[in-house]
């Protein structure tokens, strides 16, 4: 791999690290507690929201990215799109699991339970499982061209579960707060989003988006190195 690319990736890693430090500072120190939450435990737990939203962006970029590059792979047949697709899905699963974990930890002091079969929680868990199945499908197929084609088709159909999860809190009766674009009167743990909370939330989302692209670059490089290994094995065969 080129030295220019190594430097570029190191630069991206550094920016990602700095952005995360700024986001953590804003989430833990800079932003005030939500004014309408009553107990100290709830007020402290509300700060998990910034982490949760950041991870949501990471997961969303992974799923959306996999969808877009899957379409591009089917249109062009270029191997790089397949490499980006598997990298994006893997990151989507990692961040998606992080979303479920941080949401569950927030839910305990807020809803008094680690987990409930609420439409949002259920659909979010299904999305993660759908993309875990994508990775398992890839593992089960030997022929690289066939694997890439099947994975691209699966990646396109799997994405249908993502807008369903996004809309689940708007379409169905749910206790999960609607953070963007509305408020649910029945939501337990909802909070008024003033300018400082909104600023800290967007800082966290931007930081996690940069982290996503930094990790994506590393994961794609692994795919490219693996392909180089396969080519060398073919030469030796």
């Amino acid at each position, binding site marked *: 791999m080129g030295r220019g690319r190594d430097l570029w990736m190191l630069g991206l890693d550094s920016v990602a690290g700095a952005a995360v430090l700024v986001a953590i500072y804003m989430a*833990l120190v800079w932003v005030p507690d939500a004014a309408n939450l009553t107990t100290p*435990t709830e007020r*402290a*737990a509300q*700060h*998990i929201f910034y*982490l*949760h939203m950041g*991870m949501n962006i990471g997961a969303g970029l992974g799923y959306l990215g996999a969808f877009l590059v899957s379409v591009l792979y089917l249109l062009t047949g270029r191997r790089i799109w397949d490499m980006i697709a598997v990298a994006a899905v893997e990151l989507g699963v*990692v961040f998606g*699991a*992080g979303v479920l*974990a*941080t949401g569950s*930890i*927030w839910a*305990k*002091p807020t809803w008094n339970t680690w987990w409930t079969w609420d439409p949002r929680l259920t659909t979010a868990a299904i999305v993660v499982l759908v993309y875990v199945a994508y990775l398992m499908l890839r593992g089960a197929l030997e022929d690289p061209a066939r694997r890439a084609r099947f994975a691209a088709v699966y990646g396109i159909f799997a994405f249908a579960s993502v807008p369903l999860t996004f809309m689940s809190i708007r379409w169905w009766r749910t206790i999960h707060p609607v953070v963007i674009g509305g408020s649910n009167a029945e939501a337990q743990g909802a909070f008024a989003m003033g300018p400082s909370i909104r600023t800290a939330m967007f800082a966290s989302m931007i930081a996690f988006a940069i*982290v996503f692209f930094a*990790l994506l670059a*590393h*994961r794609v*490089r*692994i795919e490219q*190195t*693996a392909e*180089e*290994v396969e080519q*060398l*094995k073919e*030469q*030796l065969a």
Partner: protein
Amino acid sequence: MEYLAGAFAVAWIFTFVYVLSLVRRQRRLEQDIAMLRELLEDRQRS
């Protein structure tokens, strides 16, 4: 406060383990490449 600390701990453990897995995978593949190149050179020499 313990829930906030727990959430951050979980998030950083997730990230750390994933980054470690990326580093290990990349290192293993680079070792494979070095070994395969050596084999290829040996074959070309003989």
